[in-house]
Structures are given as C-alpha cells and as structure tokens.
C-alpha cells in the first residue's frame, strides 16, 4: 500500500478543496434555512407550517437526482464490460438527448409538463452518462451507485417524514395515498431493498446483482406512478403539497434550498465515496496479505 497511489497522506485524508467546499456548503445551508424561516412570505391559507415545504420538496428533488445518478452508474456498470453493449448504451444516451430536444416541440405533451423541462432532462441524461463514463472507472461506477443509493435513502426518508408532518396540521390526516408521496414511499422501499441486497449478499458479483436490481427499480417507477395515479382518480383524496401557482418569492427560496441541499448531498457523497474507496483498499490489502502469509501463521485459527 505504501507508494501505490502517491504518498500515504494523500491516500487517507480529505483534500483541502473538500474542506473549503464543505464550509461554503454549510454557510449556504444556514442561509437557505434562514430564508425558509424568515425571508419567505407566510402562506395565506396554511400559515407558518407551510415552511416545511422548503425542506420537504428540495429533499425530494435531491433524492430523485441521487437515484437518477445511481441508475446511470448501475447501467454503466452492467454494460461496460461488454464492448457492443457499451457502444449501444452510449448511442442510446446520445439519442435520448437529441430526441428530447426535438420531440417535445412537435408532440403534444400532457398538461403541466413544459417542453423545456423534457429537453433539460434529456440533455441531463446524456451529460450524466458521458461524465460518469469519463471520470469513473468500472469499480468507480459501482461505488458511485452505492454511495448515491445510500445518501438518496437518507434524503428520501426526510421526504417521507416531513410529508406527514406537513399534512397533519394542514389537512388533518397523517397520510393519504396520494400519488407523489406514495410513489416516493415505493421508491424508498425499492432502494432500501437495494441496500439490503448489498449488505446481505455473499456473492462475489454483488455489484452486478445490485445494478440489475437498480435497473429493475427504474423500470418499475413509471408503472408505480401510473398505477397509483389511476387508483387516486378513482378514489380522490387531498393531495399533499398541493398544486397551483406559487409566489415568485417562495419560488426563489425553494430554488435556494434545492441548491443548498444538492451541494450538501454532493459533499456527503464525496466523503462517503472516499470512505468506501479506503475501505475497499484495506480489504484488498488484508486479502492479499492473507494469501501471501506462510502456511504456519495463516492456519493458526484452524488449530
């Protein structure tokens, strides 16, 4: 391990850039929290409780972003070993980006969906795919998937806890099987099962299995959303979070908190990524040493 990747010190501590960014993120979070509690105007019908929205919705946004990255990283981990699959996936990513920039302007979209949003999402898919391809090795993609799943579950938990805490004082009920919150619950369940597979699997190829599960989960989510949506149209109930237009000042605070949470998620993921790398290095070194140990010492435990 000495001298394998630069000096030992470089291996084990977080870089200075990390600490600077961490401090900046902390300041951003504090300011965003202040904005949510003080600067944002009080909502007319719901009162001060509505401010939970500035933590509930940005957490959801961050969780979805993280799970999105997990999906891309999982796909990469599955296709990269295979030349033709890798090429196919890269062209598919480009195609998604191109089509999403053209199609929404010619095809009628369901109500409430902007063409620019579709285009941005499509380009984001392409960009994410190629960025991850460039900057992460095969094993790096696997660690990225693990990290984003873990941090995503943390943020998703926050969404599921703040949701009912908001619903109870406003609508009088803790839970209603409304589309968004229930879909988030299912997403949470799927990713918790993902983490359990990671933890309990004794296979040597756990990363591949987990990646397959992540792909299944991603395929499942549209179906989850539609099934719950249709169920809701048959049995309508209040929608947590409401719809409708939003005051521009509130929108600014919401965006600010989204940015703050995303930065915080990035810092945490960076930290967790480094920890995982170090952990795997340690395990690899231990395994190597156990292999290279002379027989007498190694079989001590079996005596």
């Amino acid at each position, binding site marked *: 391990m000495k001298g394998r990747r630069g000096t030992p010190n470089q291996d084990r501590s977080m870089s200075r850039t990390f600490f600077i960014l961490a401090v900046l993120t902390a300041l951003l979070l504090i300011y965003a929290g202040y904005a949510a509690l003080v600067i944002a105007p009080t909502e007319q019908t719901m009162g001060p409780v509505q401010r939970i929205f500035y933590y509930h919705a940005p957490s959801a946004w961050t969780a979805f972003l993280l799970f999105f990255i997990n999906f891309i990283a999982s796909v990469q981990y599955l296709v990269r070993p295979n030349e033709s699959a890798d090429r196919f996936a890269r062209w598919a990513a480009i195609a998604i980006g191109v089509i999403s920039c053209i199609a929404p302007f010619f095809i009628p979209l369901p109500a409430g969906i902007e063409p620019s949003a579709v285009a941005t999402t499509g380009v984001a898919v392409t960009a994410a795919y190629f960025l991850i391809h460039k900057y992460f090795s095969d094993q790096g993609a696997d660690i990225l998937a693990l990290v984003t799943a873990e941090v995503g579950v943390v943020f998703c938990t926050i969404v599921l806890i703040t949701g009912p805490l908001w619903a109870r*004082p406003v609508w009088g009920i803790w839970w209603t099987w409304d589309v968004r919150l229930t879909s988030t619950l299912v997403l949470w369940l799927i990713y918790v099962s993902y983490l359990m597979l990671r933890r309990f699997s004794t296979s040597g190829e756990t990363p591949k299995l987990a990646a397959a599960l992540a792909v299944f989960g991603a395929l499942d989510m549209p179906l989850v959303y539609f099934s719950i949506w249709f169920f809701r149209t048959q049995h309508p109930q209040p929608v947590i979070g409401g719809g409708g237009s939003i005051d521009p000042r509130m929108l600014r605070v919401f965006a600010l908190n989204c940015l703050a949470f995303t930065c915080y998620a990035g810092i945490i993921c960076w930290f967790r990524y480094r920890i995982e790398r170090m952990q795997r290095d340690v395990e690899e070194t231990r395994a190597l040493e156990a292999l290279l140990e002379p027989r007498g010492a190694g079989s001590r435990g079996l005596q």
Partner: protein
Amino acid sequence: MMFLRIAYAAVWIIQGTYLAVLIRRYFRVRRDMDELERK
C-alpha cells in the same frame, strides 16, 4: 408552529446522525490503514 419545529429538527437530526456515522467510519478506516501500514 409545533409541527414546523419538529419537522426542521427531524431533518437535521437525521442528517446529523448519518454524518456522525460517516465520520466514525472514516476514522475507523484511517485507523485500519495505519495499522496495515505499520505491519
């Protein structure tokens, strides 16, 4: 409002707990790396 305070507290307790767990793991891995270095 009580629910507002509980919600904000919950958010930071959850984030804080996860962060604490990560920090503890970080120092444990560093300790393991040091041990292996010394051998």
